[in-house]
């Protein structure tokens, strides 16, 4: 081709224009259809999210098959805590009203780790009046026990003050019924 320099530059300029225009077309093609119906996101995403199977059941869903734990849990200080936080999800355990899977049950040291996820003084996210925290190992030292003790050796995991209140009642530190 025998084009003048100016011509060539013009062609370069036009190509840039064409490329940019082409980019806009490609952009249009790539944007999902339902984008922007409600806002700058895919409207279909809402439908898809609604179709995701539900995995959590709430505490009420556990009670009918676990009346023993339910009874303790409901009357203890942990009554506001979700069973599933400590045990895993309903979906991993029950399908169509039948037990289909085993849930993890923490043992020994794991229990201490679990309790400290919420009760460690070092986690200062919430105030003492919302959740009581303990410093480790001071809390165990205060009770004059070895620091290898696990929390569930004194606290009932489902009703953490159950035995402690009981103990205080027996020793007369607290009146029965409180």
């Amino acid at each position, binding site marked *: *081709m025998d*084009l*003048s*320099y*100016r011509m*060539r*530059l013009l*062609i*370069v300029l036009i190509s*840039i224009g064409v490329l940019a225009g082409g980019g806009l077309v490609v*952009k249009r093609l*790539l*944007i999902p259809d339902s*984008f*922007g119906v409600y806002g*700058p996101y895919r409207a279909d995403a809402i439908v898809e999210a609604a179709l995701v199977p539900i995995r959590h059941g709430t505490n009420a869903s556990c009670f009918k098959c676990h009346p023993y734990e339910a009874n303790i849990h409901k009357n203890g200080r942990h009554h506001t805590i979700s069973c599933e936080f400590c045990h895993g999800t309903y979906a991993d355990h029950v399908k169509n009203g039948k037990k289909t899977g085993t849930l993890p049950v923490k043992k020994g*040291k794991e229990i*201490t*780790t679990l309790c*400290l996820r919420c009760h*460690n003084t*070092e*986690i*200062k*996210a919430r105030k003492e009046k919302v959740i009581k925290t303990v*410093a*480790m*190992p001071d809390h165990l030292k205060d009770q004059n026990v070895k620091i290898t003790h696990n929390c569930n050796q004194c606290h009932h995991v489902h009703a953490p003050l159950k035995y402690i209140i009981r103990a205080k009642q027996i020793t007369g530190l607290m009146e029965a019924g409180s």
Partner: protein
Amino acid sequence: MDTAYSFAAMPISNYVFPNDLHVHWSMMIVLYPYITGLVDGAFIIAALYYLFDIKTLRPVARFSLLFALAFLCCATLPLLLHLGRPERNLNMLLTPSPTSAMAGFGYIYAVSMGVLVFIVLFVYRPDLVELRVTSKGWLQFLYRAMTFDSIDLSEDALVLDKKIIRFLVGIGIPIAVVLHGYVGFIFGGVKANPTWSTPLMPVIFLFSACVSGICAIILAYIVIRKIKGRTIDHRCIKTCIKTLTLFFILAFAFEMLEVFSHSYLRTGYHHMVEGLLNGPLADSFWFWQVKIGSVIPLIILGVMGIFNIKDRLYDFMAAVVSTILLLQVFLMRWNVVIGGQLMSKSARGYTEFHPEWFGKEGILAVIIVMVIPFIILFVFSRIFPFWTTGNETDV
């Protein structure tokens, strides 16, 4: 130590929300403004020559363009490394929204890349045409593409080139300023962080960007010329240092003004910002960034500006001051980006940053990201000659 107790060993103070314990924007986000800053400053040097006709800058003008281009190529690398799913980054460009600051950056980046590439092509056209004739094979093909397949070097064509360069550099300046000002804006736009969300942020970033870029050019010019055993154009260094002095005074003044306005206004979060600068950042901000990194260079620059200094010593001082200022700007980025995240939204506690060695955002990755632009620069040097050859006095 048992994991259950290990929290007790953390050097956090007071109330820190669990989601504030960990610094989420780590070293890669420090590099991001640093690299775009280098691009900006280098471009300013080129602009001073090509648009404002500061002739003494001629020896470094072409080099600054390539330097800017090499770093611009890597400007998004740290961001991509920071992302959990880097392959999704283009999605944001498909569906930009006024509430997405990052999409804006993507577009500004693309435009500045395009403009810079064309500036380089036009600036180098005479050389490229010459090289095209002597080259063979795929290299020749490359040169043909880069010269728009034209060997027209007539007076008329060169005059046209000059005009185009002026035009491109002319629009290049606002684009470069927007590019880096935007980086500052992205931080300034984070309402949740009181150290960042000030309207001064883009200004501070912009001026310190110019400082770092000019320093990088001075240092690179001196080092490369020395290694190659070639002469150093003293007048050029002098002009660079003068420009640097101006930008550095502005940058430092604004950095300090920001601190002053924080402490004078005593806004709701002031106690946190003050505690941050005097607590966790006492060393890296007051001592390293301000005393060592800013006051000392200011004195050196003052001496260089006022007294008559021998050329060789002057060049040496230029290299020293550039090195210190390059570190100062890096520290400034560090103190803003990482420092700003060391305080909890609880407005009551501070946390600590522990850099990791390996990993996507570790120290090793930082080193690699900073080396890549130099590799690109080396590759460029094979295609585009840095310095005009032959006539040494006329470099």
